[in-house]
């Protein structure tokens, strides 16, 4: 939304901060991620939404630099629209500026809170917030406000100190209840038909666990 | 005696359909049950066959056969979508009989049906259905067969054929036959014993000819020289072409016939009692 950018622009000018450059810590993190030319992993997906009962699903995820992430599964799987882009390349697709809001603590780690704001209307998100662990040079959390699909709040957990890719990704989002087609022949005695029309949003989540990760790097 | 019913009564609500009815039937005997429509013939037969319960009275069946009684109640009930052979197969299998194709063929021939016919029974004439019904009634060699109005719907040839079969059953196989009709002609010369039922009561019983004669209002005489007979002209007589309907006075018919033939030399070719149905169906004066 352009009005948001105006406010940020005024704050930046008013704060005297230089908002045209990419934050150096973020650049360092980006360089580290750019050294990864690809990876393959088995991803375990566990959906946590109150009105959805889905068994744990498995899929194979593969990434090659410069290409979109590929996910393959024999079963029906629901892939979160955000969360598997571990290099956050989607944020860099269009020109953006960053704003460092200073140090904060998250998951017992000291992080830099960095806002990423696209400078063009073409991007599919309006603003993103990153919690960057500058000492381990890893993203611990990201919050991406998409234009069409709401806000995704993603928490990354790592097992080893040097690990570039997270072992667990917790993606939270807002989701409305299920719309029930009246002709769907199911047991519908408990259906709240009024609630169906303007159902309130609630929080939903999907927990992704990467197993058997195989990384390829620039030599 | 194979079958005996004693003092059988049956009511449907306030309407009493059978009042203390008693009858018997012995091996090789043909017993007739005659009565107007609604007299209770079918109800009595249903009670004898165990389809309807009796309110009072008793039934006695002296037979060691696995199927003491066979019968047809009103029209024969058959599976119209099955052939004659299949109908026989169904009715024999349900009573545990395992008959061969040859047996079925023999049974069909016995009642005058062609064993080569395989079309469904719904295509059969009433006469053929009656024959098949009789074949089914005779499955498992019952000692007594009950036939309820078996002549209805049959042409004269069919009636004659059925009468012959009944005689064969009784005469040659020693089966007791209990047969009902509302038609005197059909039963008259077939039965050994006759029961007359009206309004649920047996009102007359006895040897068939005796029962019929007791209700005879006249005699139809056939012969030569009848019109000139002095004996006949002294009695109440109606002359017809070739015959004379005689209404005798108190003298027995035998004596009148004797006079005609011996004294007047009249050649008699026939003397048929004309049973008055109204009289027949009236209760006998005790």
């Amino acid at each position, binding site marked *: 939304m352009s009005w948001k950018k105006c406010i940020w622009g005024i704050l930046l000018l008013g704060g005297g901060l230089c908002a045209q450059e990419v934050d150096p810590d973020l650049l360092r993190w980006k360089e580290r991620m750019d050294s990864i030319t690809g990876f393959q992993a088995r991803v375990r997906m566990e959906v946590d939404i109150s*009105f*959805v*009962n*889905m*068994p744990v699903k498995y*899929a194979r995820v593969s990434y090659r630099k410069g290409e979109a992430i590929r*996910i*393959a*599964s024999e*079963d*029906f*799987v*629901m*892939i*979160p*629209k955000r969360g598997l882009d571990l290099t956050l390349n989607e944020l860099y697709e269009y020109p953006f500026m960053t704003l460092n809001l200073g140090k904060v603590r998250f998951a017992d780690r000291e992080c830099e809170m960095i806002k990423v704001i696209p400078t063009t209307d073409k991007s599919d998100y309006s603003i993103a917030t990153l919690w960057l662990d500058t000492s381990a040079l890893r993203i611990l959390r990201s919050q991406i406000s998409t234009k*069409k*699909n*709401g806000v995704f709040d993603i928490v990354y957990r790592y097992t080893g100190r040097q690990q570039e890719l997270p072992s667990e990704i917790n993606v939270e989002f807002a*989701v*409305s209840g*299920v*719309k*029930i*087609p009246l*002709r*769907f*022949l*199911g*047991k519908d*005695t*408990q259906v709240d038909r009024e609630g169906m029309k303007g159902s309130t949003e609630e929080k*939903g989540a*999907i927990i992704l666990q990467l197993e058997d990760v195989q990384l390829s790097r620039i030599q | 005696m194979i079958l005996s019913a004693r003092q059988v009564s049956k009511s449907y609500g306030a309407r009493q359909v059978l009042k203390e009815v008693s009858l018997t039937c012995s091996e090789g005997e043909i017993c007739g049950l005659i009565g107007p429509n609604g007299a209770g013939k079918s109800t009595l037969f*249903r009670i004898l*066959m165990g*389809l*309807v*319960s009796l309110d009072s009275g008793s039934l006695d069946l002296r037979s060691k056969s*696995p*199927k003491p009684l*066979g*019968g*047809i*109640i*009103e029209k024969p*009930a*058959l*599976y*119209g*979508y099955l052939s004659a052979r*299949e109908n026989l197969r*169904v*009715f024999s*299998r*349900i*009573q*545990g009989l395992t008959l061969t194709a040859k047996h079925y063929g023999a049974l069909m021939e016995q009642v005058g049906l062609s064993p080569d016919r395989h079309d469904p029974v719904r295509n059969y004439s009433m006469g053929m259905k009656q024959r098949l019904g009789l074949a089914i*009634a005779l*499955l498992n060699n019952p000692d007594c067969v009950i036939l309820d109005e078996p002549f209805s719907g049959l042409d004269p040839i069919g009636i004659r054929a059925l009468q012959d079969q009944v005689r064969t059953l009784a005469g040659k196989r020693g089966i007791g036959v209990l047969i009902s009709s509302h038609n005197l002609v059909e039963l008259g010369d077939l039965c050994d014993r006759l029961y007359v039922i009206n309004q649920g009561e047996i009102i007359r019983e006895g040897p068939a000819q005796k029962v019929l004669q007791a209700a005879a209002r006249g005699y139809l005489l056939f012969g030569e020289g009848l019109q000139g007979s002095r004996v006949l002209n002294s009695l109440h007589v109606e002359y017809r072409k070739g015959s004379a309907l005689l209404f005798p006075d108190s003298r027995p018919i035998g004596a009148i016939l004797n006079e005609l033939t011996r004294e007047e030399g009249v050649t008699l070719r026939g003397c048929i009692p004309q049973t008055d149905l109204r009289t027949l169906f009236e209760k006998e004066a005790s």
Partner: protein
Amino acid sequence: MRNLLLTELFKIFRQRKTYYAIAAVFVLEAFIMVSAYYQGREILEVLLENLKESFEFRGDLLNANLIIYLVLNSFWFHIPLILMIVVSGFLTSEYKDRTVEAILLQPVSKWQLIVSKYLAALIFTVFILAVLVGSTFLLSYALFGKGDLVVFLEGLSFFESREALRRLILAFLTGSLTMVFYAVVSLTLAVLLQEATVTWIVAALFLIGTTLLLRLDFHSDLLNTYFFPKLTDTWQSLFYPEVPNGVILRKNAALGAYTFLFALIGIWVFQKRDIK
């Protein structure tokens, strides 16, 4: 008794109307499968609409398992109606043709005859259902392939293909008990009413009444659990995320008891009644 039962089955399968009934079941099944396919996409679109904001989907939910589930839903009304009409005809046609009387003129007892009719009805019902289930599974898997099953039952539940197959089979088995119940009821109605058209009307009313009573709240736990209309949709319980096995077994046992009771009523009345 064995001879009587075999004869009953012989008569059933020699009648044209039996094959009309089987054809009707197939036509119904084909119709439901075709309409399930065309409406299935629409249904899934609506069901998953809100989730599409947060997720991309991989895999096709419009598969054999969903089609089979939609066919299973025909158990609500269509199959019991066909069954009740056909099964009641096993007896009403014999009353009309007076062949009940003809059979009882042979050395066959009333209770043996009527018990063999009930057993034949049971076998016929199971046969029709086996044909329905077998053809549905075969055709669906051949045409639409396997995949996850999505069901809306107190939330959106997804079952993996193998689990879905297991639940669908158990659901058909449980649903078969309901079909047997309706078949037995229709035969009992035939004993009580004897005339074909009246029996069909009352059977249809029974089915409609049961379907309506199923949705009614009786404000009593006992009635809401064990009153017979409430037992006719037990198969649906197999699609809860956690299958309440104990409840299903108890409900099936109760429905079995009701089935037996209706059969006993029919046998008792048939035994007592005169054949006029």
